[in-house]
């Protein structure tokens, strides 16, 4: 029998198997825990307004910015109380889904990893 090429190793239920990978499996991104500080972009669009500066104190659910996307003005809200740091976008920027827009540093030091 012809020996298949490019065989990889996979472990399922404690047993090692030789196999081929699917393209999707090869391209998978390993899990990394989300940074609790990041304000993430949930919709691809254009930054239309920024209501905070580095050092601004915010409370959870405060409006941070507006992203225009899909013919709508979408509010980006704070996910927790804290201080704004590391704003990575400016008005007019095109932003993609999943990227960090800014950080909210918790006021209680030592609570972030």
């Amino acid at each position: 029998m012809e020996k298949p090429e490019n065989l990889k190793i996979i472990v399922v239920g404690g047993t090692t198997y030789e196999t081929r990978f699917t393209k999707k499996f090869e391209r998978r991104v390993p899990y990394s825990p989300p940074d609790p500080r990041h304000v993430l972009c949930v919709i691809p669009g254009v930054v239309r307004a920024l209501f905070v500066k580095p050092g601004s104190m915010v409370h959870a659910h405060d409006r941070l910015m507006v992203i225009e996307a899909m013919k709508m003005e979408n509010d980006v809200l704070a996910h927790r109380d804290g201080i704004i740091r590391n704003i990575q976008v400016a008005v007019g920027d095109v932003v993609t889904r999943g990227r960090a827009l800014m950080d909210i540093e918790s006021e209680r030091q030592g609570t972030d990893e």
Partner: protein
Amino acid sequence: MSPSNKHIDFHKRTDQVLRGGGNKAIERQMALGKLTARDRIHALLDAGSFHEYDLFVEHRCRDFDMDKKELPGDGVITGTGTIIGHPVCIYAQDFTVAGGSLGLMHARKITKIMDHAIKLGMPIIGINDSGGARIQEGVDSLAGYGEIFYRNTLASGIVPQISVILGPCAGGAVYSPALTDFVFVVDKISKMFITGPEVIKTVLGEEISMEDLGGARVHAEISGNAHFYAPNELECFHQIKKLFTFIPWNNREKAERFPPRPPKPSHDIERVVPMDSRKPYDVRDVICAVCDNSDFFEIHKNWAANIVVGFARFDGETIGVVANQPMVLAGVLDVDSSDKAARFVRFCDAFNIPLVTFVDLPGYLPGVDQEHAGVIRHGAKLLYAFSEATVPKMTVILRKAYGGGYIAMCSRHLGADFVIAWPTAEIAVMGPEGAANIIFRNEIASAADPDAFRKQKVAEYTEKFANPYVAAAAGHIDAVITPKDTRDFLIHAIQIAGHKTESRPVRKHGIPPF
């Protein structure tokens, strides 16, 4: 044995089984913030209504010294009872007995109660709290799981099936909940996954905690496996009881009718939806402004929140509501929201619950991730579900209804019985910007001032097409109705559609794109 001794013997045997896994195991259960299986049943069912089956069932495993082990009830409690007067079949796995592990007799107790439920037309509630397969029983344990999954599938669309995850539910065991209609999870107590953190670490080198992998929040917010999330068990039981007020016992009944109640005066429908179609709002405020008592029971509240689904009542009758949510992701359809709404629509259709759909969406979410995640086949599920549904279907277009999104949201073309639009509705093949850019592409490119020309054409297109009257002129919608007339119209429509019949070509079953 004398008759009195027989009674003493009976009480002795009963007491022994009722003690479950014993005091130590019960203490460990309580220390985890968990109720015992028996307490859970009593907390959920109407007081004194529980009738237990198969109390004296014993396991039959003879390997690995199992014949010397007594497992009271074989680690599961089963029976019938009532919830707010509704009869239900229920089982609760008892983690204090061999970790709630599932052996053949344990499974047989569950399948017996499921058969009973299917035959008698009673909902099934399964409380899951189990370490998984009883390894000592080998393939018999797998047989047990398979027999449960088979019955979950047979019962689907016949009686409502509810899974409550109050402990671990891992490996193959997760597929029973996944086959049922509503999955309830509780913070810090529920854990669901196919392969646990240790295996993932060994095989892929990825490190993750059990909570981050398959905790309650993960399934209520990210995976969508759970429909309801509660901070503790008692709140969870409260949610289940509330759900039962909205759904029928089986597919031959209608949900119980309640006395009609007007919406609360604090919900003013005139003030919810901004005129500017770019401004967001919470569509739940629209629902609460038109439904009885402003009481909307939301399902999948924290997953795919760009679409809202849940139960409400109109004139006392249960209605399934589907609504785009402009406040989240601009209300777009995407992989998850299509999946979520399609499942809900099929539940409503199976259980004789009419559908009301509120439309305000810009279309489908653009992105490589969406296309590669299969938004085509997932999006098709929603088209399928709405087209397939033969319950009365009412559609209200609030603002934007563009392109494929307009079709998908229970349009006339998918068999809606009534389609009405507010004066603010914009029903068009696409948004004015996009349409003008395509229709006048050459003219814009060759104009002296392309930007000014484009703006002019967008304005012209908006004026001419961003309204409900083009669709109304073609008869694609039945009426243009003001926000304040919407409730009366819907009540009227639900009343006259009460005896709707719709026949379909005979077939074994359709083939929805799942």
